[in-house]
């Protein structure tokens, strides 16, 4: 128990340090790139005097470290400031968009797991059979298709030709949950397909590698049925590298699928991030970047925990 606590505390400290570091880097990067928040807010023909007054009001004319510390003080209190583009609280702005991104992540992640694990197992069991060759071929293809391109194809085929959904007609979950899920399935598929293909390929090769190992032969020679060897021994071991991949994918999806959100016109975080960068809406960008960094770090942390759960040997290392 003590080891466990120590581990968690250690991870937590590294989370805080990483976030601090990330926020400093984002903050500095935003000062280095050309573009001016005051200009974005007041328009190009604002006079120097007006710009100066705006900077004064918004605290933009203070020195860099002071501005950073001010921001940090507020952020620690949970106040991420005010969006200059939308003229609303950053927290309110982001929480609304986050909902969309989270749902997209959940749906596509479920799709990935539900589809890839059975197919991966099937493919490995039929190693070099016709089905396996076909699956390998298809995974190669789908791995290489960028999600947004797939999104365009899906919109064209299912949206415009078959009319299974109305492109761009996103409906809030609060308004009509069934319609919401129905619409979200399509972007989720676009996000999931390449990642599913990748997971299948990974799982297949991981399973095949495990099947060669001695413990499998031992199990077989003591008369264990193939199917139970697969599920009771091989799968557990083969999943470890796959979980790493899945975790990376989950972080990736949670960070917002910028292009898929553009194609399907989803009001998610990715689209918000793009428009905030374009408008030099510093407070929003900073908050989203921090969110993404937290997601990556926390997921890594969880993966570590899952490793230990699956394979207790990891803990000892």
């Amino acid at each position, binding site marked *: 128990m003590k080891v466990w606590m120590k581990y968690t505390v250690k991870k937590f400290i590294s989370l805080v340090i990483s976030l601090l570091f990330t926020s400093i880097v984002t903050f500095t990067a935003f000062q280095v790139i050309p573009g001016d928040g005051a200009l974005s807010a007041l328009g190009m023909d604002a006079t120097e005097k007006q710009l100066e007054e705006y900077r004064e009001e918004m605290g933009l004319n203070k020195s860099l470290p002071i501005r950073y510390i001010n921001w940090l003080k507020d952020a620690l209190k949970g106040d991420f400031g005010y969006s200059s583009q939308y003229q609303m609280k950053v927290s309110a702005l982001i929480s609304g968009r986050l909902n969309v991104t989270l749902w997209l992540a959940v749906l596509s992640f479920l799709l990935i797991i539900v589809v890839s694990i059975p197919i991966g197992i099937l493919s490995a069991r039929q190693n070099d059979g016709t089905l396996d060759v076909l699956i390998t*071929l298809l995974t190669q293809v789908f791995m290489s298709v960028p999600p947004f391109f797939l999104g365009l194809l899906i919109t064209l085929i299912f949206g415009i030709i078959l009319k299974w959904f109305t*492109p761009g007609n996103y409906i809030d979950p609060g308004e009509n949950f069934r319609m919401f899920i129905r619409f979200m399935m399509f972007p989720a598929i676009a996000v999931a397909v390449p990642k599913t293909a990748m997971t299948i390929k990974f799982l297949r090769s991981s399973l095949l590698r495990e099947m060669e190992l001695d413990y499998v032969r031992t199990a077989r020679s003591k008369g264990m049925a193939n199917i139970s060897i697969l599920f009771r021994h091989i799968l557990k071991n083969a999943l470890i590298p796959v979980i790493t991949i899945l975790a990376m994918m989950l972080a990736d999806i949670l960070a917002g699928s910028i292009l898929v959100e553009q194609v399907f016109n989803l*009001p998610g975080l990715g689209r918000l991030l793009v428009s905030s960068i374009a408008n030099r809406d510093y407070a929003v960008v900073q908050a989203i970047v921090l969110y993404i960094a937290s997601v990556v770090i926390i997921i890594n942390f969880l993966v570590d925990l899952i490793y230990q759960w699956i394979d207790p040997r990891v803990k000892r290392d």
Partner: protein
Amino acid sequence: MFFLYKMKTKLSLNNETKSLVGCVFMLTTKLAKILLLVTVFALVLCGCSGNKDESKTPANDDLSLTELTEAAQSEPTYGGSITVGITQDLDGLDPHKAISAGTKEVLFNIFEGLVKFDPDGNLNPAVAENYHISSDGMVYTFTLREGVKFHDGSLVSVEDVIYSIKRSAGILEPKDPTVVVESALSVISDVVATDEKMVEVRLKQVDSELLPYLTCAIVPKDYDELNTKPIGTGPFKFVSYTPLQSIVLEKNEEYYLEGVPYLDRVTFKISSNVDAAFMELQAGAIDILPYITDVHASQLPKGYHLEAGPMNLIQGLFINNKVPPFDNKLVRQALCYAVDRQAVIDMVAGGRGRVIGTNMYPGFKKYYDESLVNTYPYDPEKAKELLKEAGHPNGFQFTITVPSNYQPHIDTAQVIVEQLKQVGITAKIQLIEWSSWKSVVYKGRNYETTIVGLAAELAPRETLARFRSDAENNFMNYINPDYDGLYKQAEIETVEEKKIQLYKQMQAMLTNDAVAVFIQDPYQMTAVSDKLGGYTHYPIYVQDMSLVYYKKGTNPINE
């Protein structure tokens, strides 16, 4: 003010699609073949639907004149709701703080000023019933219209008017620095009420072109929720706004004009880019989609028609007059001769646009000098001669800095690069992100040439103001004391005829000095559902929904 046709923040997805698909193709040949099949499959699908559409809407190409008359003939009905696609998110709901044209054209439906533009560009009384300008031109007196109500039901008072104008002009105490002050309004010294219905706007100096700027929104005094729950006097009331999604408006039943608006509800749906929005239109989820491209115009699905009109925008190859070799007038003139403007319009916009020769919109009919179009006919030989004379017999190299977020400007740059090769000039295109363009090119004046569009000013003088030697927005670095002199004269001139003459003199000066290569006033194209009538182009950026109606027999509510 200054925009890319409209300030759009859009990813040019098309391009990315192309280049990324290109990369994928290079991966492996096996893969390439399979992808090729997928792509061919997709293209076949596109092709099928495309062909079908074209055959059914042959009228797409000869603009919308016939359709306009058709629309005028069909009888309007009341009620119904529509969805309008917009490809740029709003930058706030407070009309005094919004700067983007994309926001203002939506807010036009909610807010009104003392006066209001009509589709011909005339100013009609709105919140004011009439106005009077004193003989010395220093005082504008407005009489408020009887019984104009805000959307919350309260009557508009002189206090509200004073507050609104002072706020817009930046003379309200305490001052809010986030309010965007139009420079034209800074001439106002005070606003006072003379009785319960009369308001006097007093000026620091004579200004005969202030009126168009008094279209600035009248809002309730000291109302601090403009940002979240805007209240105005316009034909539509605000219902809701969700960032990245939509803004919903509903009919103002108590609007003071009889007969409008027709529609009960208008939803402006925000899309990430015009391609995504066009897909929604193809699926029938959008009824009106402005700012579509030439490519979209040729793919309009059945049930939609095209409305087109001038954008009131000056697209040009703008030159930094201070940077060699462009500090030499001959070089700039050579550029003017070397660019075939009609060819640009034909190649980039399918011929939809009007060649211009100076920095004035043809929309300002009285003031615009049409003859300047012919000052620099396309003449590569003449261009070469001038280059020789200027000491560049073998041409030279330069960079065209183009904002990366609007394709027509990039396309224009590409055509111009090819045209300049004919006279031995090598131009290189450098793409720049829009926010950087604003601070580096526009404010920093750190560029050689750039291609953008100068968007509609409300009054003709403002379009000429930026060329004064000391103007803050004189990003072309044009220095000419004679021009400054003329401008000073025009500023205080009250006799219309003389003013027109001065404006034309200034335009001619800009053209003869070849300040820039003025290219065109592009057309804006809007896809409109055949069920709807009344869609009207304005000489300013406006999507006026109060005139839009369902034609008889098509209104979903009446059937």
